């Protein structure tokens, strides 16, 4: 059960990372990055690191995403190809 959960989390993690890389709308990319960070938090919680999980949720997912969104608001939203 636990092992299966692990595998699902890891696969989901990789999938989110790929969607971050692929989305051309930067706001979407940042939101997906937030999701990626939150999933990473779950992984860490699961690996016996609750301190790091809380920090990643607050700093990695929270603060980083907000700072990114501010920067997007002042630059461009679409990634050009």
């Amino acid at each position: 059960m636990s092992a299966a959960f692990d595998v699902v989390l890891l696969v989901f993690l990789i999938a989110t990372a790929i969607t971050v890389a692929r989305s051309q709308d930067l706001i979407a990319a940042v939101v997906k990055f937030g999701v990626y960070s939150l999933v990473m938090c779950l992984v860490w919680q699961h690996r016996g690191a609750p301190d790091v999980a809380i920090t990643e949720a607050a700093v990695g997912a929270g603060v980083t995403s907000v700072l990114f969104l501010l920067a997007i608001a002042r630059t461009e939203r679409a990634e050009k190809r």
Partner: protein
Amino acid sequence: MRGLGLALVLVAAFTIVLGIGGLPPRLDPEGPVHTHVGARYAERGLEETGLRNLVAAVLLVYRGFDTFLEVVVIFTALVAVLALPSGVIGGTSWREPDAETSEPDAETSESGDRRAAAVVDRPDTGVPVSNVVGFVVRLLAPFIAVFAAALLYRGHVTPGGGFQAAAIFGALFIALGLVLGRAKADRLVPRGVRPYLQAMGPLAFALVGLLGWRLTGAFLGYPSEASAYVLREAMVVAVEVGIAVGGAVILARLFQALEGR
């Protein structure tokens, strides 16, 4: 670029796979990771530091200097952001904004720079916040503050600690700034005390470190006798509060600067 990128990634993947294949088996309680330094922390950490959360014990007591430098790093980030020319990144002065009208160009900047700066208009940050959001933030603010304080205070025993509290305090400032408007939010932390508050993390460490040297003969040492329990506790709390307050103010100011204030 694309081909080069792919090649680089493949080389990196290949090297890493080769390398991590040679690591000792993970999860093995007899592996080197668990039998050396970590084992001693697990055995004697509580007795030596008085902290039940061993991560906090490592961060604050065993490897306090790392955390000191970490606090210095986020302070550096604030200074770095404030170092950028005004007009784009806001709030270049970390005291009251001086009446600086002329901004001489650097030896390196070109005339184009001046033009660009003139064209840039301050972003529109006066987005009205909906009543619902305003209400919810006001309602939750005290609870969020209590939660952050609890994370800080209970950090010895449960997961949490200075930085997590800082992030949440910082987020609270930011949310209140959006809801209450800038003027009121600015009054929450008067400008005059900001230079002191943002310096609190490194300063708390430096002072506690000096005190520790005076008491134990080692910089950042904590008295270990049972009788000095209260003093030791006070030193740990001083450092944690320094990290939390300093960190929160720095995060809020980074937000403001990126927002263009």
